[in-house]
C-alpha cells in the first residue's frame, strides 16, 4: 500500500526497509521526505499529527526502536533498518494497551488531538521507569502539550496505567 510520489527527473532514491507496527515494509523515499508525511500519506496512518511543525508540541511523536522522535522533523530514510511504532500499532489484536484503557477510563483526553503522542510518550516513560514520581512523569512528558485538559487527567491516566502494569489494580 505505498503510493510513490511523482518522481523528479534526477530524484535520488533511498531504499528503506523497516518494520511498521510489527510488519516489514520496503519502500523507496527521496532524501527530503519527512517521516510524518510517509506514515500519514503512504501508509494512511493518521494517528500521528502535524501540529506545531517545530518539535515543540509532541503531537507528531512516533517511536523508533522504542525511542520517541518528532516525526515532523525526522527524515524518512532515517528509519531504515529500524522498527517504527505508531498509535495504531499499540493495541494487541484488538486488546487495548493499559495506557489506552486508562486514558478512556480516567478521561485523559477531550479533543484527542494530542492523545496519540501523549500515549506513545507515556509508553516510553513507563518502559524506562515503571514507577515514576509525579515530578519524573512531568519532566519526561514536558514536551507533549495539551490545550484541552489542563493535564490533571492525563497524569492520572498515566499513573493509573503504571499501577496496572506493575500488577496492581488501576
Amino acid at each position, binding site marked *: 500500500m505505498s503510493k510513490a510520489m511523482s518522481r523528479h527527473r534526477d530524484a*535520488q532514491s533511498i531504499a528503506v526497509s523497516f518494520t511498521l507496527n510489527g510488519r516489514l515494509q520496503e519502500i523507496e523515499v527521496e532524501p527530503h521526505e519527512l517521516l510524518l508525511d510517509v506514515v500519514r500519506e503512504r501508509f494512511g496512518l493518521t494517528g500521528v499529527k502535524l501540529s506545531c511543525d517545530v518539535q515543540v508540541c509532541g503531537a507528531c511523536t512516533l517511536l523508533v526502536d522504542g525511542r520517541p522522535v518528532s516525526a515532523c522533523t525526522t527524515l524518512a530514510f532515517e528509519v531504515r533498518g529500524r522498527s517504527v511504532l505508531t498509535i495504531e500499532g499499540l493495541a494487541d489484536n484488538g486488546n487495548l494497551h493499559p495506557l489506552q484503557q486508562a486514558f478512556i477510563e480516567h478521561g485523559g483526553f477531550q479533543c484527542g488531538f494530542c492523545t496519540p503522542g501523549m500515549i506513545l510518550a507515556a509508553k516510553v516513560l513507563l518502559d524506562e521507569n515503571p514507577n515514576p514520581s509525579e515530578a519524573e512523569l512531568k*519532566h519526561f512528558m*514536558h514536551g507533549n502539550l495539551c490545550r484541552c485538559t489542563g493535564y490533571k487527567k492525563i497524569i492520572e491516566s498515566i499513573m493509573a496505567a503504571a499501577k496496572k502494569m506493575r500488577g496492581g489494580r488501576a
Partner: protein
Amino acid sequence: MLRRFRLDEPESVAEVSEILGRFGDSAKIYAGGTELLLAMKEGLVRYERLVNVKRLKGLNDVVANNGTVKIGALCTHHQLETSSVLQQRLPVLVKLEQNVANVRVRQAGTIGGNLCFAEPHADPGTLLIALGAKMTAQKSSSQREIAAEDFFVDAYETSLQEDELLTEIHIPAPTANARSAYLKFGYLERPSVGVAVAFNLRGSTLNDVKIAVGCAGPAPRRVPEAEGVLSGKSTDEAARNIAQAGVIAGRASQALTDLHGSQEYKEHIVGVLLKRAFQAAIS
C-alpha cells in the same frame, strides 16, 4: 515539505571535508537535524546537498582517561544524560543535558550539532566554557583544538572553517576540590538566560574561578572581569562580592532585547543566576 536535496553519506572525515570544500555554501553537515531541518522547513536556508555524518566511526562515545573526559560530537543529548561515565565525572553536565529541550529533541539532537549551529538560546556552550573545554576541529589533512571560550563567535557563527568538522569535546576531569553549577531561566521554549560557574575550593579559598554567561546575548562568553572579583577570595568575601560580579557579568552578556525580555531584565537575571549558581556550587 522540504525542498529537494541530495544526500551524501561519507564514511570518513576526509570525505566530509572534500564535499564541503567542493560545494561550499550549498552543502551542509547533517547529524540530528534538530536545528537544521527547522531552518530548512522555515525556508530560511536552502541546501543542494546534506552531508550525513552519522556514519563516521568513533565519534559517539564518552570516554574518561588521564584526567580528561572525551565526548564525541555525535553523542546525542540522550546519550549524555544517561552516560554513567558522565554521571561519575561530570554530573553538572548530566543535569544540563537532562534539561535540554524535550525528550524527542534529546533523542535525535547531537552535542556537536548544538554547538556548531550556535543558536544563541542554547545551554551546553555556556557550561563548556566554564569547564575549560576544548573542541577538536578536523579536516582532511589536519586537526586543531579550539578553546570553548574562543569557539562561539556570534549568533549562529562559530570559529570553525567551512570545511572543518567538530569531532570531539575534551573536558578536564574535575578534581576533588572542583565545584561547578549551571543554572538557566526561561519561560519560552528555549532558555532566556544561562549562567555557569566553576572554581576550585581549597579550605575556604576560591581559585581558578570561571564564569560564563549565555542565552542573553548573541553567543555565550566567559567573563574574566567578573571572575577577578571572586578569584583568590575567601568564600565569605566572595559572597559579599557576588552582587558586583553579577552586575559585571550582566553587562558582559551583551544582552539583546527581544521576546525573551528586555536588555535590563536579562542583565538583572544574569546577576540573580550567578548568585544562585555560586551558592549551589559552594554547598
